[in-house]
């Protein structure tokens, strides 16, 4: 049995030369719209009980439109959605909440909006109150709530009665970490009881974690549908690899790519939004990575050594330059950065026209994921900290996991386990 089947679904926004033509259409007078703008077309997929499907795609790819059509707030222009079971949708947390009413009153109201009877709400109330876990605030007006508290109550109502299908649209990115965890726990336990999930998220990791399948929307149509990991990888490739040739010369993609075996280089890891500046006395011409065996690579192994390298052309003489780099996550969180000054390395001065290859050798303590780096050159003698040349988000590399080790986080501490009995 399928819970939900979407067949050849499409949505077009129609505009008419005059709104009066639209009105005439309601009364059965057929008038062709002057313009049809298709925002989604040819979508086909099915959900079976207990399945979780993640929907991914860039902004404007049609994810929310698809959810709205499945939820029923928006009418499909072509194709149809067949639903067998109750759908609960969290397209936005706290819909229909009135700030002057208490949490409890709002729960009543919101549950009514979802079509529950008074008895059903009363039954679920203790559970909702316990899940929201905001103590006495539950009977205070919602206007005094923090946004996190509001999200707690809203999520508690939305998931109080287990629906057959739960639709979540990036609503969970609120609240503190503990609460988010709690939300995921509840979703997981509902799923174990047979609920299906339809999740829209930009966070590919959580899709991979929660979903069995994924649907990738691109340019208003279905790019691919299948196993979550495969589709997510394709999406990431599309996301980071859609660059045109403009930044090719800046990256490892240049002349070196032919030399390398395909295993070491992921062509899709191409930076598109690089920022570079400096006073022009030198320029960083190229940045690349080399793996433990000295081969250019942007896929690096956990635990191995690797090198960040860059080539600098000096346009005028610099007496004591400082070279630096910084490794960051996709979200921009700095993980590790240093420079030749802090390392205590002596650097000599360079003359105009010198071309220098800089190399930092590192041990890869990063967990699997994708990372950005910055590179820069400063002048030790200058008063203020200003860069001779700096390139932000200049290159990316990926740390690969050979096997699923189940570790989480950004850093690999290389934990070793031991135990001994101290009392028996």
């Amino acid at each position, binding site marked *: 049995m399928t819970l939900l089947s979407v067949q050849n679904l499409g949505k077009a926004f129609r505009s008419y030369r005059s709104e009066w033509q639209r009105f005439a259409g*309601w009364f059965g007078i057929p008038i062709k719209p002057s313009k049809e703008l298709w925002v989604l077309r040819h979508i086909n997929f099915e959900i079976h009980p207990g399945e979780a499907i993640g929907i991914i795609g860039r902004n404007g790819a049609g994810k929310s439109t698809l959810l709205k059509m499945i939820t029923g707030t928006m009418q499909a222009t072509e194709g149809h959605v067949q639903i067998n079971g109750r759908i609960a949708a969290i397209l936005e947390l706290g819909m229909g909440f009135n700030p002057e009413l208490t949490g409890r009153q709002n729960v009543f*109201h919101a549950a009514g909006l979802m079509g529950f009877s008074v008895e059903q709400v009363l039954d679920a109330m203790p559970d909702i109150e316990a899940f929201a876990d905001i103590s006495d605030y539950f009977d205070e007006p919602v206007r005094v709530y923090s946004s996190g508290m509001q999200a707690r109550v809203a999520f508690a109502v939305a998931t109080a009665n287990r629906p057959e299908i739960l639709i979540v649209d990036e609503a969970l990115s609120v609240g503190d970490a503990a609460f988010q965890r709690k939300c995921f726990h509840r979703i997981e336990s509902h799923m174990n009881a047979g609920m299906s999930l339809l999740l829209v998220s930009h966070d590919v990791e959580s899709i991979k974690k929660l979903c069995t399948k994924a649907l990738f929307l691109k340019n208003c149509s279905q790019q691919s549908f299948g196993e979550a990991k495969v589709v997510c990888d394709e999406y990431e490739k599309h996301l980071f690899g859609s660059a045109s040739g403009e930044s090719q010369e800046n990256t490892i993609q240049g002349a070196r790519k032919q030399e390398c075996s395909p295993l070491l280089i992921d062509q899709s890891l191409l930076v598109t939004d690089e920022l570079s500046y400096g006073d022009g006395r030198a320029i960083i011409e190229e940045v690349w990575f080399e793996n433990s065996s000295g081969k250019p690579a942007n896929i690096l192994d956990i635990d191995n050594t690797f090198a960040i390298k860059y080539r600098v052309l000096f346009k005028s003489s610099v007496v004591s330059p400082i070279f630096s780099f910084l490794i960051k996550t996709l979200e921009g969180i700095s993980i590790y950065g240093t420079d030749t000054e802090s390392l205590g390395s002596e650097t000599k001065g360079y003359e105009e026209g010198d071309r220098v290859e800089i190399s930092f050798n590192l041990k890869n303590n990063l967990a699997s994921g994708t990372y950005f780096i910055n590179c820069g050159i400063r002048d030790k003698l200058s008063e203020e900290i200003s860069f001779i040349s700096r390139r932000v988000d200049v290159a990316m590399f990926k740390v690969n996991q050979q096997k699923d080790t189940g570790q989480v986080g950004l850093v690999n501490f290389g934990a070793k386990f031991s135990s001994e009995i101290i009392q028996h």
Partner: protein
Amino acid sequence: MLHSLWQYRHFVISSIKNELKSRFARSKLGGLWMLINPLAQVLIYALILSNILAAKLPGIDNKYAYAIYLMAGLLAWNLFSEIVSRCLTLFIEQGNLLKKMSFPRITLPTIVVGSCLLNNVLLFIAMLGVFLVLGHQFSWVMLWLIPLTFIVVMLAIGIGLTLGIINVFLRDIGQAFPIFLQVWFWFTPIVYPVNIIPESYRELLRLNPMYSITDAYHQILAYGKPPLMGDIAIISVIALGLMLLSLFMFRRASPEMVDAL
């Protein structure tokens, strides 16, 4: 439509309740404001206009005749204009809800009608109190107000819902109609008696559907007489027709409304 409305009856009732609660939350007099506002309106008109117009109100032997006449007309007009003007902006105001939640759309106008009716009943009770103080007679004729209220509601839904739907696509309506409503108010004999209009123009009043309604309210409340059956029959048919038209449009427009919001 009716079935889904019945399923969502709890939501409709709790919405009406919540609306009242939130409107008067944090105000000392709370629900009293609902009565103070229209009564103050009556008082203002009465103070300013009663001397000018009092002589021209035949048939009521009460020195507060004008105030009574005024209240009777306002009872009808307030219900009408409140429903119409709230329906006018209803879908735009609730746009986000319409886009994000799936629920029977018909509940929204139902909530408006419900809360306006509640206001109207409370206003009526307050008026009865005032009538008592002014020494005005009550009679069984007042039971006529029940079917009349329904007619006003049908008429108001017919006009309000139609304009509210059009307003989603053509926002000018939302700006223009309140002006028109003002004009309409002054072209309906509410603050003035119908006999101050020159004989030759009086026939034109027949074109105003609110005239036969306010006239019926006047007959019932001010003069203690049953309304003119012919007029009532005509206006009921018009009101029912407009309401059915608006509900038909509502059905047709619902799917497209979300696209335009």
